[in-house]
């Protein structure tokens, strides 16, 4: 009996804390100290919410059929649906394609395939770019060897080498994932390398003076110290990955958000194009929020 009461009390306290937490997303927590002159200090969430509402409102207004047309008695929107469908239409398409097939699959199928490609490439890129970036940071031979090819291919648009990928690796999954992989790999490897360089020499010296071996310095000081920049590289990298998605799915993809957008644009189904864009944006943004949260947990010392 007693413990049940206590449980209820705990629950109430938890809820109060949660409400407080939500509140402090918007306004300054009085227990936070304000430091004079920190660039861009303060909560921006309220402004961001306003921004979302602002742009959504513009979208709604310009697609609302309130203007008289040439035909007597008919009202048309400021921008025709062919150029910009209304949010209601896009949402209707969203719910429709969620269960009905469009261009080779339902929406969950498209999302699934695209996530498989982007996250598969992201996983492969992380598994290779981080060790190579560390090696480039700590070994001049590796750095000298890998720098030219990476810096050479980095600025080339993926669409330019897409044909080569297809000729070399066929029209299957390999060339698609490889294309996205290459887009993620370069920024991640360069960020990792920069992360190694950002580790203060005094930390490395201190570790050696305490008897650390080379391996201990590499794994416990350099890798750890490079972590904030590695995570930034991962965030930038996956952004590039999403950017490359449509290009990767241009060639012979049965399903995928990029393929869906491509075939919708072929048939001028603009509302599906817009819906695809919004879905990609939302998936990518959600993942970025997750990464930011992970960053706060994993490298709380960043910038300290």
């Amino acid at each position, binding site marked *: 009996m007693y413990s049940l009461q206590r449980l209820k009390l705990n629950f109430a306290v938890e809820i109060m804390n949660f409400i407080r937490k939500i509140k402090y997303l918007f306004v300054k927590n009085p227990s936070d100290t304000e430091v004079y002159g920190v660039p861009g200090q303060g909560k921006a969430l309220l402004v961001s919410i306003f921004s979302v509402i602002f742009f959504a409102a513009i979208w709604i207004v310009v697609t609302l059929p309130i203007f008289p047309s040439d035909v007597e008695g008919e009202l048309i929107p400021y921008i025709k649906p062919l150029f910009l469908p209304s949010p209601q239409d896009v949402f209707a398409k969203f719910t429709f394609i969620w269960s009905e097939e469009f261009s080779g699959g339902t929406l969950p199928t498209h999302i699934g395939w695209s996530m498989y490609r982007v996250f598969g490439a992201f996983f492969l890129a992380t598994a290779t770019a981080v060790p190579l970036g560390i090696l480039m940071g700590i070994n001049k031979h590796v750095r000298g060897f890998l720098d030219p090819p990476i810096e050479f291919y980095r600025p080339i648009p993926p669409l330019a080498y897409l044909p080569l990928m297809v000729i070399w690796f066929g029209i299957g999954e390999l060339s698609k994932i490889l294309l996205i992989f290459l887009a993620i790999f370069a920024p991640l490897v360069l960020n990792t390398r920069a992360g190694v360089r950002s580790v203060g020499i005094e930390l490395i*010296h201190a570790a*050696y*003076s*305490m*008897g650390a071996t080379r391996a201990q310095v590499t794994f416990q000081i350099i890798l750890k110290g490079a972590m904030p920049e590695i995570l930034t590289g991962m965030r930038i990298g996956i952004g590039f990955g999403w950017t490359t998605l449509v290009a990767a799915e241009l060639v012979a993809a049965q399903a995928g958000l990029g393929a869906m957008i491509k075939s919708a644009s072929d048939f001028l189904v603009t509302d599906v194009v817009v819906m695809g864009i919004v879905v990609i944006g939302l998936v990518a943004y959600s993942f970025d929020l997750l990464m930011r949260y992970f960053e706060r947990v994993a490298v709380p*010392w960043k910038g300290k």
Partner: protein
Amino acid sequence: MKKQKIVAKKAAGQVKTKLVLADVNVVFPGHGGAESVQALSNINLTLQGNDFTVVLGSSGCGKTTLLSLIAGFIKPNSGELFFERTLAETDSAMPKKQKITVDGPSRDRGVVFQAVEGPSRDRGVVFQKHALLPWLSVLDNVEFPLKLRSVSKKERFQEALKNLKLMGLEDFLNHKVYELSGGMQQRVGIARALTADPSVLLMDEPLGALDALTRENVQQIILKGWLATGKMIFFITHSVEEALFIGTRLIVMSPRPGRITHEFPLDFSEEFLSGKTARVVKSSPRFIKMREKILDIIYRDEGLIK
């Protein structure tokens, strides 16, 4: 004056170690058209036994450079830096003298880093350089040297806690280092160096950011620790009073080019260790006379008086 030599504990049959710097020069190349800096010029210095060497000198005269050299962080442009180990008589089978050139940092030379890189006129920028690991808590930082050697968890904790208590930090075990004040961070650095337990302890203005009271306390802790362990200590400071009180030997350096200009033996720490209070030692006429003399030398170096 009575000359009573303080002999710190030494295990029997142990080797005697000398650290020798012979004609050492360090030049930092100037970047982007700046002139190169002769940071150290013709340094000849021998540190031996349980010497407690204190280094004084104006900002930018090369104190940190000298310490980095001994720690093995930088290499001399010319000259030699080596350990000379003389084996005790009982070990006659082994060669009498062994010369080991210093090559890189090692566990035998522990370092307490200068907390804030001095307000150097030549470099301008002031960096926080306490060299603590920001991703570890205070306790983990102090345990770190033992963790590197895979010492058991319990032993690590006891040793770290002991040294953190010495530094008055037992209430901050689980804080992150960036949550501490500059002076507290410095004390964590000292606790970590004590935990690493090197045979030579190199300290770069370790008490620079401490308040006067804590500073006096930590001075006494270091002195007593030195007496108990017989470590060789190399100690940089800006405070003349601290230098006179804590060392057995004083080195005064001058800038441009960085060089050793004076050397004095010191015995005020003996007075403290044989029972007088720190305040009594520091206010004795002999202490004050010495302090004024050293200040005079430093002011002359600075060109403040002719």
